[in-house]
C-alpha cells in the first residue's frame, strides 16, 4: 500500500501536512510532516506533494542492519536516510527525517485531500519504473 499523488489536482492547502503532524505528534507543524507540498506560488502556481513511495527495495536503509518491517512503521527517522532516498521524498527538519508510516493503515492526509490529489494505491513502485520516476522527479526539482 502507498499513497499515490496526482499533482495536477493539488490545491496547495497544506491540510495533509497539518494532519500528518497532528496525528503523529499531537501538534500542528507543517515542517514535521511526512508529506510536503513543494510550491511554485509566485510563478506557475503548481504544487507538488512529495512523500515516501513505499519502495519495495528500501535504498534509504542501505548499510543499516535494521528490520525493514519495523522501520516502515516508524514516523521519525534519522535525516541520513533522507539523503539516501533516490526521490528526495522524505521531509527533513533539524536532525530528523519524517517518513510516511501510512498512519498504521488509514492515512489521514487522504481523508482531508478534498481535490483528491492523494489516493490510496495497493500497488508498489518497483525498479526500473522507480529509476524513471527518480529521473523525472529530479528534472522537475531542478527546472527553473
Amino acid at each position: 500500500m502507498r499513497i499515490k499523488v496526482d499533482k495536477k489536482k493539488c490545491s496547495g492547502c497544506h491540510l495533509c501536512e497539518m494532519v500528518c503532524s497532528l496525528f503523529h505528534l499531537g501538534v500542528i507543524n507543517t515542517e514535521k510532516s511526512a508529506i510536503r507540498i513543494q510550491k511554485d506560488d509566485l510563478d506557475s502556481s503548481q504544487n507538488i506533494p512529495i512523500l515516501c513511495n513505499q519502495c519495495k527495495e528500501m535504498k534509504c536503509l542501505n548499510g543499516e542492519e535494521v528490520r525493514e518491517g519495523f522501520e516502515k512503521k516508524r514516523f521519525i527517522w534519522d535525516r541520513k536516510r533522507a539523503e539516501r532516498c533516490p526521490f528526495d521524498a522524505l521531509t527533513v527538519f533539524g536532525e530528523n527525517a519524517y517518513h510516511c508510516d501510512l498512519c498504521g493503515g488509514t492515512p489521514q492526509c487522504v481523508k482531508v485531500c478534498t481535490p483528491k490529489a492523494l489516493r490510496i494505491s495497493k500497488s508498489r513502485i518497483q525498479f526500473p519504473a522507480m529509476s524513471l520516476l527518480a529521473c523525472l522527479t529530479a528534472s522537475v526539482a531542478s527546472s527553473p
Partner: protein
Amino acid sequence: MYLLSRYYSSSLDPFSPENPLIFGAGLLTGTLGFGSRINITAKSPESGHLGDSSMGGEFGAELVKAGLSHLVITGKSKNPVYLLIRNGEIEIRDAQKLKGLDTVETQKRIRIELGDEKVRVACIGVAGENLVRYAAIRSGMKNAAGRTGMGAVMGSKNLKAVAVRGTLDIRISEPEKYLRYYLNTLKKLMETKWAQALGKFGTPLLFKYANAMGILSVRNNQLTTVGDRGHHLEAEALEPYSTGMLSCFACPAHCRHRFSIEEGRYKGTKGEGPEYASIGSFGTKLGNLDLENIIYAVELCNHYGLDTISTGSYIAWAMELYQRGIIDQERTGLPLVWGDGDSVIELIHLIANRKDFGDILAEGPFAKKVFGEPSHDYLLEVKNFPIEMTDERLAKSFALGMATSTRGACHMRSRPSLDILGLPEEVLKKIYGGSVNNNFSSYSGKGRMVWWHELLNAVSDALGVCRFLTVFSSPHALQYRQFSRLISLSTGLNLRAKDLKTIGERIYTLERMMLIKDGFSRHEDTLPERYFSEPVPEGPARGEVILREEFDKMLDEYYRLHGWNQNGVPKRTTLKRLEIDR
C-alpha cells in the same frame, strides 16, 4: 479592532506616523480552522474612517507559525525598509533596492535575498508607495488586503514589506478529539452544494445569479443587468483560461482559479483569479464585457497593489461624469467611454503612478473636491467608501447591510444572503431567532438578518475562518456551534456559542463607537441617493427602489437588536453589558 480602538480618534491623520498598522491573525489561523485569514486594520486614508481588510493565502498562518498573532506598527522610517520576522525575532531591513518593484517581484527578491523559498511576504507595490488612497497590501500571486487603503498606510510608513518565516509547533489542546471533530465537520461541509460549487467554479459562479436577478452594478448602477450578454463573463467563460484550482492555507474548498491567457492581445498574462468582485468591478460596472481585458486589468492592479473594487468604482464614477459632461477629455486626457477597456488599462497605469488624470482619481472619494458639487451624487458611496460591483435596490437585506457596514459600503461585513435561497420561513426563524421574510425583496425582518450576520462575521474574522465556509450561503455551513468546538478542542478555551455571539456584539459595537467618535450617527447609515430616487429602469429588478419609510423601519429594528438608540448610538447599558464602557 480592540487594538485600533486604543489609538483611534477623529483627529488621527491616516497618513501620520501615529496611525497604527495592525496585522491580526485569527485565533484559529494556522490550525485546521477552515481558512487561515489575517485582518489588516488602521484608520483608512480612503474613507478617512475605520479601515479593515481581511486577507487569505498563507501569510497569516506563517505569522502564527513564527510565534506571533498580532503586529502593531507605528512610526515612520526615513528610508524604505521591510520587516523580517523569524520565529519570534523581528529585524528591520533595508528595502531601498525594492523601491518601485511590483508586488510579485518584491516577494521574489526578498526570498532570493534571504535564500528561503518558504518565506511568506505581505508587501505593497507602486500604488502603495505613491500613497494611492486605495492601495492594497498583497501576498502571493493574488491574496490581498484590498479594501480601505491599508497599502497606502503601509506606504506612508516607508514600509515596503513584512516577511515572515515560522517553524514552531502549534500546540493543540486535545489532538485526537480535535482531529476526529475536524474530519466530521469537514465531511458535512463538503457535502453542501455551496462548497462543491465553490470548489469547482470559485466566486465567479455568483456572477450568473447576480446578472439573472438584476443585482449587478452596470455602468455605475445606471442599470443592474446586462441580460444575455452576461454569458461572456460567467464562470463557464473562465474555464478555457483555468489551469486548476487552488486553496488558501488550511482551506478545503479550493475556490481560487489559476489562469493563463495563451493567445491574443493579452497573451502571456497569467496568475490567479479573477474573483466575481473584480469581474464586476472592471466588467459590467464599466460597461465592459471583454473578459480578457478584465483579467488583464485585474492582474495589472494586483501587480501595482491596487484594490480592484475601489479602482473599478472610481473609474466608473469618472465615466459617468464624462457621460454627463461634468468632466471632459481636456481634463481626463482620455476618452472615458463605457466599455473602453483600453482607456481602463491606461487609467490603471496613471492611477498607480499618480500621473495626469490618474493623480486626481488616486485620491478616491477626495477627488470630489476637484470635480465639484455636481459630481458628488454620481460617486455611489456610503461613509465615504464606494459601493462595489453590485446594486442593492432589489435585495433589501443587502441594502441595509451596505448602509450599516462599519467600514463603509461593503457587501461582506454582513453578507445577509440566506433569504436568496428560498428557504422556508420556519428555517429562517430558527436560525435568526425571530421572523425573517424569505422573499429577498421584502423589508420584513431584514434588520434582524443584517444584525445577526454582522455578529457572526465579526466572530469569523476574529477567528480567521473564511466567510465562504460559514453560514451565509448554506444553512448547513459553519457557525457558532462549530466555532465553539474548534476553539475548545484546539486552544482549550471554553467559549460557548452564546459567548461567541456576545463577542461578536462587542466587536461590532466597538467598531461603531469609533464611527461615533468621527461624528457618525443614523444620518450616515444610508445609501446613495440613486437607490432612493431612481427605480431600476429595466431587467428582472425593474421598478425596484428603496422606500425611505421601510428602510427606516429596518434601521429601527437593527438598532434595537444591537442595543443602540434610535440615533444609532450604543446605549450606556449596552456598553456596560459588553464591558466596553471604560
